């Protein structure tokens, strides 16, 4: 398809540029780049479910933590390499995903209840995990000190981690390109836009949601393994607190839900922005950086409600709507 080939071109170009980064960037900026790519990865994974399938899921912290904790636990207890630990982690994530999907479908939860329920589940997971001493309790589970080398997912240098996440991000972009143009991707969007109509033409919404969810969960699990190895620890706050995961959702939304490049753009733009703010203003006045950050968010959302890369064409900015008569008309004027 014409679109895919131009996307592949962009991907190739971007990869080549980014691959040079470790050679020219300072350790600090390399660290920022790693985080930015990690967010790009996470946002793209979440976007499958949230953007393409329209399900506002707050369950992804659970998949993230399954990855992280499995890697740390198997590494600490059994000296199993995280690469190998990835497999049972993915399996477990997929099982959890299936359970959640079954419950949601069986009880036909509307969007709001689904979001709240998954948020509650993440919180429950957080409280449970932090109460289990074997998983490190409140402090979390650290990566064993003697884990070294690529086979143990410890490249020993920042650039090592950088290349891992770069390759992973390239891979996920390819996966999203495949997904977007595949039958599953089309079905996912159909279900998102009008479930009843989709069912009427034979699309089984349950299966579509399930498959999309499983893909997303599996991909997120890898990010969990990566992140745990990168920060040397898997802990309940970093991995399971809904407040921290919100950044993933916000970046995706600002970048543009349901598009290929939206999550990537959102993550690559906003992560360094946050870092720069934190580093410059935040160092002297902690809190101001968060304030400006939040204001930037709100302004972007008001100006581009559907994201920087919007899948809608020609929608009006919210600001323009506020100042029009339409804002004052009761919503009952629509039948």
């Amino acid at each position: 398809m014409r679109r895919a080939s131009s996307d592949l071109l962009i991907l190739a170009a971007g990869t080549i540029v980014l691959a040079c980064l470790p050679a020219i960037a300072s350790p600090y900026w390399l660290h920022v780049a790693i985080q930015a790519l990690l967010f790009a990865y996470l946002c793209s994974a979440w976007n499958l479910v949230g953007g393409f399938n329209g399900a506002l899921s707050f369950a992804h912290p659970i998949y993230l933590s399954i990855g992280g904790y499995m890697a740390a636990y198997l590494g600490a207890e059994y000296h199993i390499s995280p690469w190998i630990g990835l497999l049972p982690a993915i399996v477990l994530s997929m099982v959890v995903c299936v359970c959640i999907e079954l419950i949601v479908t069986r009880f036909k939860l509307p969007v709001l209840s689904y979001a709240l329920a998954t948020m509650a589940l993440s919180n429950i997971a957080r409280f449970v995990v932090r109460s289990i001493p074997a998983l490190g309790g409140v402090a979390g589970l650290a990566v064993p000190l003697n884990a070294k080398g690529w086979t143990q997912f410890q490249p020993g240098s920042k650039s090592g981690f950088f290349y891992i996440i770069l390759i992973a991000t390239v891979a996920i972009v390819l996966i999203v390109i495949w997904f977007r143009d595949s039958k599953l991707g089309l079905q996912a969007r159909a279900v998102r836009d009008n479930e009843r109509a989709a069912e009427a033409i034979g699309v089984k919404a349950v299966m579509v949601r399930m498959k999309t969810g499983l893909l997303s969960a599996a991909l997120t699990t890898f990010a969990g393994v990566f992140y745990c190895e990168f920060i040397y620890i898997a802990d309940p706050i970093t991995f399971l607190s809904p407040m921290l995961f919100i950044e993933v959702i916000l970046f995706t939304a600002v970048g543009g839900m349901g598009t290929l490049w939206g999550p990537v753009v959102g993550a690559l733009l906003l992560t360094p922005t946050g870092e720069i703010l934190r580093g410059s203003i935040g160092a002297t006045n902690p809190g101001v950086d968060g304030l400006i950050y939040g204001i930037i968010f709100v302004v972007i959302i008001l100006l581009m409600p559907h994201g920087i890369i919007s899948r809608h064409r020609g929608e009006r900015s919210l600001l323009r709507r506020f100042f029009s008569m339409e804002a004052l008309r009761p919503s009952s004027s629509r039948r």
Partner: protein
Amino acid sequence: MLEIDSLSVSYGPVEVLHGISLSVGEGEFVALVGSNNAGKSTLLLTISGLLNPTKGTIRFLGKPMNGLAPHRRVADGIIQVPERKRLFPRMTVEENLLVGGSNARAIGERPQMVQRMYEAFPVLGQRRKQEAQTLSGGEQQMLAIARGMMAKPRLLILDEPSLGLAPRIVGDIYKTLVALNAEGLSVLLSEQNARISLQSSRRAYVIQEGRIVLSGNSASLANSDEVRQSYLGL
């Protein structure tokens, strides 16, 4: 009293009413006849201000209505009993009436009006503390009309008042409407089933696919072949 001139209304990109012109004189009883999806409800909702026309004007008592919010039209005296009644289901009969009579013109006489409604519709008086959704179909339609009357209408609009009701009850309702009209209330109503609406009204319009195709004296329309075939089931 009500003058509609070349009104066009669209749902998004689709135009559903095309250049409608219609009028209701002071004290008149006018019927709007048309099948499902002909545009009756769209027209009535636009008159009440819940939909915006893309072209054309609506004037009430000489005053242009375009852009006026629904609650202001109520203040001017345009009251609608909507399709499927739309009572407040979990509010009592009495509460429905109270809400009906809460606009600025009506509120001064509200307690007396409530009493008059109970006298005119004894059933409602008996069920005054019951939730509206527990009433039977006919009782609900009566309540809907009473609620509309509470608002002291100058023009009472009814959207398919006979929908889903047994013939005898429909008869009662129309008797009430005719009586109200005789006292000076202007009435505009829409129906699919033309028979009784043509019997009770003085003038009528026939609407089809968003256009007025026939208009005139109700009695002569009732005798016309077209109407008899399409709308009277003959």
